[in-house]
């Protein structure tokens, strides 16, 4: 049976109330992975694409609650039903993943939950982008245009990924020690406040450190005039910090165990902590850092099957279920799709669907400085 018809029939059954939400999600996970595994092009690529054999498919994500949402609502039910194994890999950061992809063969890695426009540009620079046939992804029309346009601009009008969710990297603080008013008043400078020496954390990623260094030195992160002032702020933060965390799990552990009182944090992870009962405040300071995540199809993947899967994952019911699971708003435009009651309560959610209040990495500006700044950060981090 044609995949599209199968998906439509499944969706209609759910909409008509013939099947429960759980059954629907189970079946969609199964069908989704089938699209990524058994499509026509896959048969031809099977010999070359290790992860794309009918026995298994490769999907890489951020781990933790994010990958749990994907696995729970899509992949695990599929494996249970069909016996086809889903290799659900995780990575701690986009840098780590791109190194793996670079070392691999075309087709070895198929789908990835990548972050930001910046990484999309890096993949494009390394000629790892594919070209999606948008006619096969009709649900793309429901996605917030502000999220699609920057990707299209990078890859010359075509797309290699569909935006899937968005969030912010704001300031997370323990309300037992830092009040909401204090956090609001100090903003990004809260993380270079000597009063919290030894109780400050931060993501040990050069882009985030420089972005916040720019805010702390009162500069526009996308147009830094005095980079030395930024390095000075990073040094101040380094000397006050207890730990640079390297994963969402480590971020949550450090805050939950009260090893640190303040750090930057990913909005969805902080929401997960709050849901667990931890009294953690979250603030997007002026000029706070927004980002989008996309489902990226790597060069060498079976395109038709992947497009089918992407379209399916963008079905509102699916995207909303995953978004609720991972606590990041979906990339669906709230002006076109009813996002239900929970999504509007998630941190970073923009009810207007314009994302005008968020600032994003300017890919051209940051890519231009990437080689120099990432290397310098490595030195500054070590005391230079």
């Amino acid at each position, binding site marked *: 049976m044609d995949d599209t018809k199968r998906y439509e029939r499944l969706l209609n059954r759910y909409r008509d109330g013939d099947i429960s939400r759980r059954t629907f999600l189970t079946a969609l996970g199964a069908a989704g992975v089938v699209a990524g595994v058994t499509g026509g092009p896959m048969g031809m690529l099977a010999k070359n694409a290790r992860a794309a054999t009918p026995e298994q498919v490769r999907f890489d994500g951020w781990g933790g609650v994010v990958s749990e949402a994907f696995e729970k609502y899509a992949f695990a039910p599929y494996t249970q039903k069909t016996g086809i194994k889903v290799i659900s890999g995780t990575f701690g950061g986009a840098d780590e993943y791109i190194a793996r992809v670079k070392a691999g063969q075309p087709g070895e890695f198929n789908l990835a939950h990548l972050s930001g426009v910046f990484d999309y540009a890096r993949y494009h620079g390394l000629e790892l982008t594919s070209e999606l046939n948008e006619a096969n992804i009709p649900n793309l029309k429901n996605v917030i245009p502000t999220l699609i346009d920057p990707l299209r601009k990078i890859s010359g009008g075509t797309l290699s990924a569909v935006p899937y969710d968005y969030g912010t990297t704001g300031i997370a603080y323990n309300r037992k020690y830092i009040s909401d008013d204090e956090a609001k008043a100090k903003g990004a400078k809260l993380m270079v406040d000597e009063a919290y020496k030894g109780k400050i954390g931060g993501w040990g990623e050069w882009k985030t450190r420089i972005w916040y260094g720019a805010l702390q030195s009162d500069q526009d992160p996308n147009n830094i005039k005095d980079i030395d002032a930024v390095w000075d702020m990073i040094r101040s933060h380094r000397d006050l910090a207890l730990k640079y965390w390297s994963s969402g799990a480590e971020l949550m552990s450090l805050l939950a165990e009260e090893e640190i009182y303040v750090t930057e944090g990913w909005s969805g992870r902080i929401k997960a902590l709050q849901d667990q009962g931890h009294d953690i405040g979250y603030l997007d300071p002026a000029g706070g850092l927004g980002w989008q995540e996309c489902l990226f199809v790597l060069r060498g993947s079976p395109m038709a099957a992947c497009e089918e899967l992407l379209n399916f994952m963008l079905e509102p019911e699916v995207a909303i279920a995953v978004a609720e699971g991972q606590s990041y708003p979906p990339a669906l435009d709230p002006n076109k799709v009813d996002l239900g009651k929970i999504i509007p309560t998630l941190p970073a959610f923009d009810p207007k669907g314009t994302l005008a209040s968020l600032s994003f990495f300017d890919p051209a500006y940051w890519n231009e400085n990437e*080689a120099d700044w990432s290397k310098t950060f490595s030195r500054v981090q070590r005391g230079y």
Partner: protein
Amino acid sequence: MAADIAGARRAPWMLLSPSLATVGLLLIIPMLFIVVYSFWLRTATGADQVGFYLDNWIEVLGDRFYRDILFQTFAIAFYTTVICALVGYIPAYFVANTPMKSKAFLLLMLMLPFWISYIIRTMSWINILGTSGALNTVMLSIGIIDEPIQMLYNQTTVVLGLVHYLLPFMILNVYVSLDGIDKNLTEAAQSLGCTGFQAFREVTLPLSLPGLAAGSLLCFVLAAGTYITPIVLGGPRDAMFANLVFEAIVTQLNWPLGSALSLVLLALLGALVVIYTRYLGIDQIAKSFK
């Protein structure tokens, strides 16, 4: 006759060929790839520029930053090795002088840590030394402290994590050395008037030095090459040389520079092994794995 001689000459090579092929495919050829990579360049997009450039080597050998981190790495490895030697000698001595029946059990206990992932063992210190970890909880509950002490994420915890990881290697090497000492020698020394301590100092300790040296070499090399421990237990500044290799390859996507860095570390640690082999013999290490 000539054919027989030629056949006899070929025979050792034929017998050696599986080993040579394995070493060539799994060690020499990958190493050559790294050497070649180190002369390439990273372009602005992260792609590699093929060619013969000395830029990476000039940077690595001429930049003080790399030298400083290298010294810091060797300092941490040295502290770790000394602590392992001091702490490891005692249990090794105890095991070597235990009656045969208990010895097997004690050796099994020594091997047990190897059954648990090194990362898990390293992370266990977070639950022990953390603000709400076991140690702080006990001290708070019995009133020794009023508020939790910050013990984690510094160079001391990095060394502690490395000692935890490497101690079994030291104990096993020293144990093998001690176990091979003829007990009659210490008894003879005592019968000639030595006290127990003198017999240990004059007979047992010198004879166990090869094992101590082998354990030290193993601990030093493994400690100097680690990068997980500083990530898990170190603070922002606590990096070791392998962390720079990781950053160059993974974060900066600069494989050529990462290759040059890894070759520098390999060369220095290799030199150490060569010096050790020249004066003490590498076979001492092999004994502990028999």
